[in-house]
Every structure is written in structure tokens, then in C-alpha cells.
């Protein structure tokens, strides 16, 4: 995923009737049979407006009599043949192995998306279940499901260059510099964060060639991309950030997302108050679940602490770029870093 500023979009819930009808035709859905094109998703225990999700791309729920579908514009950052193919091949690979990922719907001519020139749209079956409710059994199940994903992924051929967490963290620091005009007042803090990031990267001692240690990772394994039922994961979705990296990429994102980050309700936005410590019991549960299906090798554990710090830097920068956090968060990043050093992995 290229780390650059996303285009400003205010119309991410707007579709005109002609576009919707054209899309429906490509999927063999009779426009007149659609009960609603709606921004509302009803889940087991909650009712969400899709505005609580990312504002990157246009999206809508399509309600038919017998099923619910999620129409989504392919986000700008993965709208290349290479990235889209990687995503579709990976999802297809997982689906065939009965991994509980969202199912992509093909058009009547077998295409994975509808290309409309400036835009491309995908249609996914809505995954039933409920949002993450911070329950201990959900943390365990999320870890176990990720372990399963990585076991399967290790059989999936890696054909792309790795895109590692260290690269992403440095890219996000640059993004804060370019996207936040007021970052000029925080020049020293950003320079200090970059120096710290480079130190963490060098301490990771990643081998020059890591192709034999990388797999295809989900790349956005956060609570809001999973659906739960009775404490168990029943669905994993949003594979837009599929990347090639160490499996610890997903593990670090999962641990941050499930056991540290404060979110604004069930939205993907971070709450204004940045995290200062982990829920280490939750970390233990997540890793215990993961380890039931995939052993954490010594090399994995060696880099996990560093990856946690780098993903936290990435999240903090993302929060600053999105406006979830003020630039003052630069003074607070260290708190969670210290907690990562103190915690037991």
C-alpha cells in the first residue's frame, strides 16, 4: 500500500441511480428487486451507519429479499492490477480452504469487480455476526483465527516484494510532515520520532533478504475487520491492505487493535485519548489463541516487540493525518513504547 495522503472525499455514500443500476446489471441483480440501497448495517446487537467506517471509498449495503451485500469502491491505494490481483487471488485461496473470510461476488461474466473507468467496484456478501465487544474470548479467538490465516498463508506463493512494517512506519512519519500543515511547529518532535523509528528498525536486525521469512499478510487485522458470534470469529473481511511481510505484521496490528487502541465507539477512528498501556491479559489471550495453531518461532518473538512499536508509530501517525489525534500525541507516543518494553511477550 503506498503511504500517501488520501484524496479528500465527502461523497463516499453517494451513488446516482444510473451507476447503481449499471452495477446491478453487471451482477445480474434486477434493480427493481433491490429492497434498499442503504448506508445502514444491522448486525446482531447493533445498528451501524457505514459512515463509522473508513471514508476512503464509496460504499453501500444492497438489501435483497434473501441476502445482504456490501458494495464497495476499490480504494485508491490498491487500485492497481498487481494489488487487486494479489487481493483476489489471496481471498480465493483462503475461501477454497474454508477460511471464514468474506466472500467476493463475481459479475455475471466472472470478473471480480466492475471497472467503470475512473472507479472500480467490488461486491461482497455481508458477513453476519457482531462487532468486537472487548470480550476475553474474542481476543483469544481473534488470535487463533490469525494463526489459522498464517498457516494457510504460508502455503500461498509469495510473488511480490515485501512491504514491511518498518517501511510503513517511516512512510507515515513523512505523511504527517506533508499532510499536516501545522507539523512545521513540531519539526523537532517529528525528527526525534523518525530517529527513534530508525533505531527500532536497526535493532530489529532484519536480514537483507527476507523473502524466505515472509508470507502474505492481511495487513489490516483490526477489530473492526472481524465479525464475532458467541465470542468466536465468524468472519474476516477487508483485504485491501494485503501485503507481503513477516507474520508479525498482523500479530502486532492485532495486539495493538485488540489490546491497546482506544476507538471512537465501533468506528475505525481512534478516540482522542491515545493509549498509554496494553491490556497485557488480552495480549496473553491473543497470543495463546495464535499459538494453538501456529508456533511463534524465536525469530518471530525477537521482532514482535519492535513491530509493536513500529505499528504504534504507524497508528499514531495515521491518527494525526486523519485528525483523530492532535500533534500533541507526539509527546505521548513514548508512554506506550515504555509499556511495550515492560510487558511480557
Amino acid at each position: 500500500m503506498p503511504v500517501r495522503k488520501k484524496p479528500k472525499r465527502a461523497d463516499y455514500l453517494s451513488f446516482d441511480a444510473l451507476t447503481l443500476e449499471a452495477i446491478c446489471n453487471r451482477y445480474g441483480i434486477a434493480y427493481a428487486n433491490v429492497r434498499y440501497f442503504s448506508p445502514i448495517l444491522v448486525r446482531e446487537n447493533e445498528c451501524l451507519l457505514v459512515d463509522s467506517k473508513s471514508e476512503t471509498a464509496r460504499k453501500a449495503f444492497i438489501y435483497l429479499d434473501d441476502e445482504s451485500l456490501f458494495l464497495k469502491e476499490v480504494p485508491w491505494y490498491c487500485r492497481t492490477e498487481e494489488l487487486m490481483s494479489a487481493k483476489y487471488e489471496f481471498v480465493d485461496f483462503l475461501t477454497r480452504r474454508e477460511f471464514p473470510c468474506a466472500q467476493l461476488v463475481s459479475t455475471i461474466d466472472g470478473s471480480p469487480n466492475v471497472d467503470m473507468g475512473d472507479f472500480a467496484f467490488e461486491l461482497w456478501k455481508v458477513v453476519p455476526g457482531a462487532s468486537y465487544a472487548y470480550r476475553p474470548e474474542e481476543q483469544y479467538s481473534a488470535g487463533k483465527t490469525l494463526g489459522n490465516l498464517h498457516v494457510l498463508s504460508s502455503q500461498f506463493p509469495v510473488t511480490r516484494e515485501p512491504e514491511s512494517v518498518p517501511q510503513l512506519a517511516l512512510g507515515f512519519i513523512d505523511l504527517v510532515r506533508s499532510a499536516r500543515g501545522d507539523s512545521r511547529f513540531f519539526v523537532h518532535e517529528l525528527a526525534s520520532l523518525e530517529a527513534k523509528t530508525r533505531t527500532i528498525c536497526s535493532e530489529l536486525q532484519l536480514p537483507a533478504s527476507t523473502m524466505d521469512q515472509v508470507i502474505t499478510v492481511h495487513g489490516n487485522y483490526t477489530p473492526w475487520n472481524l465479525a464475532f458470534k458467541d465470542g468466536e470469529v465468524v468472519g474476516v473481511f477487508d483485504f485491501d491492505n494485503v501485503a507481503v511481510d513477516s507474520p508479525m505484521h498482523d500479530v502486532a496490528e492485532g495486539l495493538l487493535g485488540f489490546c491497546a487502541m482506544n476507538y471512537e465507539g465501533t468506528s475505525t477512528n481512534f478516540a482522542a485519548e491515545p493509549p498509554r498501556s496494553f491490556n497485557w491479559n488480552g495480549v496473553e489471550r491473543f497470543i495463546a489463541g495464535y499459538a494453538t495453531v501456529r508456533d511463534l518461532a524465536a525469530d518471530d518473538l525477537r521482532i514482535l516487540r519492535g513491530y509493536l512499536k513500529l505499528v504504534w508509530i504507524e497508528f499514531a501517525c495515521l491518527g494525526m493525518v486523519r485528525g483523530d489525534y492532535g500533534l500533541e500525541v507526539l509527546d505521548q507516543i513514548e508512554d506506550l513504547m515504555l509499556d511495550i518494553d515492560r510487558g511480557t511477550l
Partner: protein
Amino acid sequence: MNGNPTERGQVRLASHTVAVASGKGGVGKSTVALNLAATWAAAGAAVGLFDVDVYGPSLPTLVGIAERATVHEGRIIPFRKFGLTLVSFGFLTLPGRPLMVRGPMLEGALRHLIDLVQWPQLDYMVLDLPPGAGEVHAEMLALVHLEGCVIVTTPQEVAVSDVRRSLRLFSRVGLSVLGFVENMSWIECPNCETRFELFPAGGASRLSADSGVPVVGRIPLSTPIAESGDTGVPAVLDPTMPQVRDLFRDICSNIDDRLSSSFGGSAQPAT
């Protein structure tokens, strides 16, 4: 769909469904809608208040509810407070987030929400429309069986001229305008009880003379009424403001009279 659809396929949300509209924002429309609903409920009616202001839902603040709506067996359970059944897009989203929908997605959002809510049997439904006369109005007029609407305005000409646009819209779609409510009509001196008219007087009266639609009530610009919007309690339920309660009783009574005369049926609470 909830309720019994009419011949035109519109949904009936209550025995009497009344929209509250305004020509422009900031005239106190939502405050009036809440106090009308609370007045009918205080008289013993089963009343719903449906805030369909997709772009700027204010009901959560007005009634002091910060929680998100809950779902049971696939249906949204409306909030209950002050004896009212309360529904708003604001209960589905986070505060301050814009919902930029239009076209089929707007129609879908409105229709989907109406179908999702577990509506109880209601004597009155008060629909709090967005300001102006736009797409939400057109969609709601097509979706919901309305008996009429009340238009809230302030006295000055700039507000009144916008009301004329709303009047034309409602006239085109055949919706009865039951009356005008003139808000911020006057201010009363807290010491000598003298009334002062802050704006050039008679906006609602001019509208009434031009359109033949009566003025069903006038409300003063009052700090306690304004503050009630922030405290989360309708002014008519505040025992320290009996004069406000009486004003709204009169307005509700006038609207009931209009409903009875327009539709030939009793507009009194069925309960």
C-alpha cells in the same frame, strides 16, 4: 414495512402524523417539535418523535441521549424518554459525523430506517424535518402518510421569505399546512414584564394573510426555553415554566382543531 400502507404505498406511522418544518435553520424547529410532542404525551397520548434531519440530527442533544440505538431480533428498539418514542439518525452514528447521502442512498436510508424500527402503536407522530425544502422532504412526503405540517418561523422577512418556498413545495405535493408557529416573537423584561419585539413584527401574520393558513402559536425568545435544548429536558416539562407549558398546550390544541376540521376525525388522544 411497519403500519398499514395507504393506497399510495405510504406508511402510516400513527393515527396522526404531523411534520414540523422551517424555511431556514436556527429558528427553533426541533425545539418546537420536541415540545409539541411532549405536550401531546403529557395529555396522555402515545407520541413518537422522528428526527429525520439526516444532515444535522439534533434530537440526541435535545433529549440528552448519548447512547447508540440497540437492536433486538433485527429490529431497532426506539428510545423511550419523557413518555415519547424517539427515533433519529443521530442514534445510529457518532456525534458530529456528517452523513452525506443523496439520491437512491438517501431514499434507502429513510425507508430502511422506517422499516427497521419497532414502532409501537402511536396516536401522534411528530416528524422533525430538516430546514428548507429539499430531497429529504420530497422522500419523506413520498414514504410517509402525513396529515399536515406545521411551519416554524421567526418574525423577520428573511425567515418569512424562505417559508414561502416551503409553502410552495407542500402545496405542490398536496400536503396541508396546518399552521405557522412564530418563534422568538418577543422578549419579556425579567424585571417589569414588558414585552419587546426584537424583530420587525408580524412575519407570521403576513404569511397567514397571504396564504390563508392560520398562526397556531407564538413563542417568546426565552433563556429557559433556549437552555432546555442543552439540558436535555423539554421546556414544557419544567415545572418552573408553566407559561411555556400553557403556550404549547394552546398550540397543540389549535393543531388538533385543524386536524379535526381538515380530516373530519377526532384529533384527541385515542388512549
